[in-house]
């Protein structure tokens, strides 16, 4: 995805990179707000009747189950749609339009390929957060974090620089995967400690 929104590519399409990027980040963040806020609202009646400690335990168990699926334990596989954003949009629409459209889809988290269970557990946490505002806060964070790495390609103005970005992404894929496992384990511990503490 990072290689799709570069100054090199936008120059070739006659678009301004920063306009496309702002639209992309905005779309992703707004989608996060909308999904997180909606889940927080929809889950609030259930959350009101459920102790917060129980909700923390549910999140912790979901994180652990998700990690098992991520690593393929017990034959588990992470469920996901196979859909991706439409590459044709980049040729057919202005930069701000396809940037916003890509952002909306990717910021929703689950309408394109899902590579980590933490996406699902994030939305579960939003649903269990107890309010639309808390859910929206979680969703905003996801949408923004999903989009902001695009700034790392701000300096890509030549094809060789794009190849370098691709190489860096390949090199960091495994460490990023392991870091996500570690983050999930830490979050599960915090959830369980929080549930036990209160």
């Amino acid at each position, binding site marked *: 995805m990072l290689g799709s929104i570069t100054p090199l590519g936008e120059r070739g399409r006659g678009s301004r990179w920063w306009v496309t990027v702002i639209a992309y980040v905005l779309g992703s963040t707004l989608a996060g707000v909308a999904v997180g806020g909606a889940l927080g609202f929809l889950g609030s009646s259930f959350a009101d009747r459920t102790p917060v400690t129980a909700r923390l335990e549910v999140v912790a168990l979901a994180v652990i189950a998700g990690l098992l699926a991520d690593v393929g334990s017990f034959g588990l596989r992470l469920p996901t749609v196979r859909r991706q954003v439409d590459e044709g949009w980049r040729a057919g629409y202005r930069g701000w339009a396809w940037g916003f459209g890509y952002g909306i889809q990717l910021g929703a988290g689950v309408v394109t390929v899902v590579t980590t269970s*933490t996406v699902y557990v994030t939305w579960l946490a939003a649903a269990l957060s107890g309010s639309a505002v808390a859910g929206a806060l979680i969703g905003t964070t996801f949408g923004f974090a*999903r989009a902001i790495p695009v700034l790392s390609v701000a300096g890509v103005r030549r094809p060789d620089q794009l190849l370098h970005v691709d190489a860096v992404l390949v090199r960091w894929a495994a460490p990023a995967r392991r870091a*996500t496992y570690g983050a999930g384990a830490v979050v599960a511990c915090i959830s369980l400690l929080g549930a036990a503490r209160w």
Partner: protein
Amino acid sequence: MSPGMGSATVQTLVVVGVALAVAAGLRSTWSP
């Protein structure tokens, strides 16, 4: 349970959600 303790657990839940959101968002950079 006092109101203060109740809000602390809610805050923990929101912090957990935000931490998950950061991890999920950044990790999704490697989505196809």
